[in-house]
């Protein structure tokens, strides 16, 4: 009994020690840290039209070119690190990446744990169902009582919860679409940028977007570590790129000019 008690106390001491260590933050400015190493590591997942490899294997996409343009102005190099999307905050706080720059939706919950740049693209969530059932999804009311799937912690999950009561939270947006395809749920709520790319193609050919349902809009921004001074530096450059028309030029290249936030 005594031994177990001692072991428990030891575990407690270790846990409190590590928590207090986490609490004391390094005071050095985030901008200086990034400037010193000369690279801004952007956490991404590969997806069109944001970050993807072209036919020659070169990184391209709207967010890729945008990040390169911003870094050029700051005199640093943009590096792209493929991450597991569900670990993005952990990647950021353990400093393996310096920002999340991958069609990252601004939400109130996320604002509590990280700082956002100004928004640069507007995005919407949309309802995706099987193509032969899409005609019945004419309004938000038609979704009530149906089974839904959405990515865990995503803006889509919030929207799905407003539409119906049975929502399955899955690991990725693609999994939500697979849920619909396999008939486990009736509809999925995902980003319209992603849905436009995926729905109706490849193995998801028999899915369709319910165009009659208008869900609340949202915005994409770049996520930085909480309290990072990179936010103002990057915001100043974004403003510059907007004024010179450079950002609009990149957006037009990927067909996103209509969604640009000015």
């Amino acid at each position, binding site marked *: 009994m005594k031994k177990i008690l001692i072991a428990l106390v030891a575990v407690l001491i270790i846990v409190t020690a590590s928590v207090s260590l986490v609490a004391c*933050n390094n005071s050095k400015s985030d901008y200086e840290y990034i400037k010193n190493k000369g690279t801004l590591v952007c956490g991404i*997942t*590969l997806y069109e039209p944001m970050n993807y490899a072209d036919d020659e294997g070169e990184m391209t996409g709207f967010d890729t070119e945008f990040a390169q343009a911003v870094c050029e102005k700051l005199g640093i190099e943009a590096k792209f*690190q493929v991450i*597991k999307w569900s*670990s993005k905050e952990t990647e950021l706080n*353990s400093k*393996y990446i310096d920002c999340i720059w991958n069609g990252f939706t601004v939400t109130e919950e996320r604002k509590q744990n990280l700082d956002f740049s100004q928004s640069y693209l507007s995005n919407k969530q949309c309802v995706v169902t099987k193509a032969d059932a899409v005609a019945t999804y004419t309004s938000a009311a038609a979704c009530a009582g149906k089974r839904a799937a959405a990515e865990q912690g995503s803006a889509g999950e919030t929207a799905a919860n407003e539409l119906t009561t049975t929502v399955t939270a899955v690991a990725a947006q693609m999994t939500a679409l697979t849920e619909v395809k396999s008939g486990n749920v009736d509809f999925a709520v995902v980003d319209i940028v992603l849905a436009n790319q995926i729905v109706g193609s*490849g193995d998801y050919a028999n899915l369709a977007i319910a165009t009659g349902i208008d869900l609340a809009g949202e915005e994409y921004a770049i996520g930085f570590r909480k309290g990072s001074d990179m936010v103002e530096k990057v915001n100043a450059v974004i403003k510059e790129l907007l004024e010179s028309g450079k950002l609009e030029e990149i957006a037009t290249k990927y067909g996103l000019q209509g969604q640009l936030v000015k």
Partner: protein
Amino acid sequence: MSFANVTLELLSGFGMTCLLFILTLAFALPLGLIICFGSMTKFKPVRYIVRGFVWIIRGTPLMLQLFVVFYVPGMVFNTPIFAPFGDYGRFVAALIAFVINYACYFSEIYRGGIESISKGQYEAGQVLGMTKGQIFFKIVLKQVIKNIVPPMSNEIITLVKDTSLARVIAVADIIFKAEEILSLKALIWPLFYAGAFYLIFNGLLTLLFRRTEKSLSYFHS
């Protein structure tokens, strides 16, 4: 995306899977034996520490251990220790987590094997005037190896499939690649195709273990 392109893409991921598997095995097999000695030693403090360590590693999910090895140094000490390895940082972190985890499982298999050897074997060695080291390496260990082949093969086959867990820290293994094709090209079948790679690899391993068992069954020939 054609079948050939998918195959090439998956093969690049499978290379990572195989490398992680082989290196984990190469380091965890000897480390397991050292941990096993630690958990059997008569020196109590070492024994309790080693057994406590094995309890923690076997008692928590491997996925969490991958997280702890890769992310915690950066979060607690503000230094991402695997960053200097560049593109291999994630792989090295995964390798460390896998080696520690599997060494602990192997150590228990070794312990079972060593404890199954009867006292008479040691006594026979002593009668023949052998030293403790000679008794262990020339008499005990050889019988242990023969006895632990079935449980070891079980664990090793599990390792082949467990390597896919490394994708939680974005190690580009075969499943990671298949998921990437899924989100880029909207193709589901590469995921099942990836399963075939594991199946064939484990089929070969099973044959290898059967042959090993046969060649070691010198009492039943």
